[in-house]
């Protein structure tokens, strides 16, 4: 590849990728009242704060934002803990048929979400869990476990079993071995798994629109979709401001923990 060709190609790609982001920012900045029905290409004033406020209060993104933060943090933590315990059982402890347990838990990631939806809906309607925060948290935790388990297990198999042996000889209990040896040594791996599952839960739309309805229960992506459907009444600047708001947590997480995140993905490579 010639040097010039390469530079032009990369520059072209960067521009292509930047234009939508630029439009997102510029139009989210435009005061909603001054929007003329066509995308703006230059900054038309500073209405961002107003737009964010409208999206946050009127469209109910604020309530959903808090709900989603709760889901993502709690379910991410629970999923990673539960997955780490299961990985501990499958890798370190003498569980019969480890392969069976592995596939049983891992099978959760293989099937598309659609496969679980209808029965889950029925289950939730019967159990009174439909449209409750606890109901969504349960299903998010369950949904996040398999892949977290996959990541954690893969890393746990690389730890030397001598560590466990030595601790056992010293008379440590399983609980002690888990908390004092495996959890501290796996801190990076557990962190990557948490970031993964936080992002997955935060970005979920399908479970959210299926299992909840009221604004203070609905996850944030569902709220954004509702806002988008009410296009006419609010106008694009407010919707794009909403898109900006919902992107902040994952964007921050990604920018801060990029290395950890990518190592997490590559760890799932084999």
């Amino acid at each position, binding site marked *: 590849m010639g040097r010039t060709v390469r530079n032009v190609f990369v520059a072209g790609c960067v521009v292509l*990728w930047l234009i939508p982001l630029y439009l997102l920012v510029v139009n989210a900045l435009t005061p909603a009242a001054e929007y003329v029905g066509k995308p703006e290409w230059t900054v038309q004033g500073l209405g961002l704060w107003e737009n964010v406020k409208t999206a946050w209060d009127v469209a109910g993104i604020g309530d959903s934002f808090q709900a989603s933060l709760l889901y993502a943090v709690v379910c991410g933590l629970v999923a990673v803990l539960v997955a780490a315990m299961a990985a501990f059982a499958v890798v370190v402890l003498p569980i019969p048929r480890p392969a069976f347990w592995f596939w049983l838990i891992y099978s*959760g990631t293989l099937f598309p979400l659609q*496969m679980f939806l209808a029965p889950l809906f029925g289950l939730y309607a019967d159990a009174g869990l439909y449209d409750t925060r606890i109901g969504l948290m349960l299903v998010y935790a369950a949904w996040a476990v398999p892949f977290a388990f996959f990541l954690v297990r893969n890393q746990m198999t690389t730890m030397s079993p*001598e560590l466990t042996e030595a601790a056992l000889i010293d008379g440590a209990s399983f609980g002690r071995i888990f908390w004092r040896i495996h959890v501290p040594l796996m801190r990076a791996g557990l962190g990557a798994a948490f970031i993964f599952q936080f992002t997955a839960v935060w970005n979920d739309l*399908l479970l959210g629109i299926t299992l909840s309805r009221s604004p203070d229960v609905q996850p944030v992506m569902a709220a954004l979709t509702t806002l988008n459907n009410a296009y006419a009444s609010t106008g694009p600047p407010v919707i794009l401001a909403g898109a900006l708001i919902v992107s902040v947590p994952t964007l921050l997480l990604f920018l801060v923990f990029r290395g950890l995140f990518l190592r997490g993905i*590559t760890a799932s490579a084999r």
Partner: protein
Amino acid sequence: MTGTATPAHGATKPVRVRRRVPTRTPHQAAKAGGGRLGGPLAALPWALPAFALVGVLLVYPFFRSVYGSLFEDNGFTSSYTGLDNYARLADDPVFGRSVLNTLMWVAGTLLLPVLAGLLIAVATHRMRFGGIAQLIIVLPFAISGAATAVLWNFMLTSDGAVNQVLRGVGLDSWAQTWLLEWPQNTLAMIVASTWQATGLNVVLFAIGLRAIPRETVEAAELDGASGWRMFRHITLPQLRAVTVVVVGMAIVNSLKAFDMIWILTKGGPSRSSETLALSMYRETFRLFHVGYGSAIALVLSAIVVASSWMYLRHQMPDTGTAKS
């Protein structure tokens, strides 16, 4: 690459000697240690929370869904109809279109983001400001699918930014009602999802490129390889491990694509841009054809599992089966 779970105990399995010293692998260590780790039930409490969550909320609904696909079920009454739902699928014109769209998504999201990702990664590799270019291209990946969809909705509507640009540069005839006609609505959405998904591939390929030993490249250079030959015979084979992951993820994700389509077109107009993932949702939760929806979901699951299994088995003969 942190090459982790290589099938360690698969490789060291034929250890026949019973030893009291710890062996290399955990399971064998446990067996050889003869009960020092407690009975086989001691591990169960540790696996139980995961089993309970996954079993009750994922595995049970899965089998319930398989069973439910044999019923004509409108949410209130249900009657056993055997394989009728599947027979109906074969006759349903929407299902045919839906399969076609799903295939387009798979082809599109395999070709575009993977090729673009590879090209951009190779081009930015060891380039000045290459890291910055990579970061810019990966930014959309950190934005959620729903936010991306909202943004592209804004760009693709009839008086949106894309048409504005086309008219601005004098290509009026290229301006389209992007989301209102098939097939360009599906194609436009594939482009939008390419915009979002390419970045991750770029970064993964970049990691793979950095892992290529310098000596390999230098040796090839000494042998007179450069440009295309270098890429074809040195770079590409060395990127194999990454490519397996990238393509594997692309297959699964494209089959499940939902957010983008649901927000941009809701599968419309008149269900022309529906994929299997959308069809299932509409049949079950909009039209209350629960059994029929389950049948679609099962077809989709079968395709996802079969394609990823075939792909992985083909690409990773050494690790594909040894994941125990």
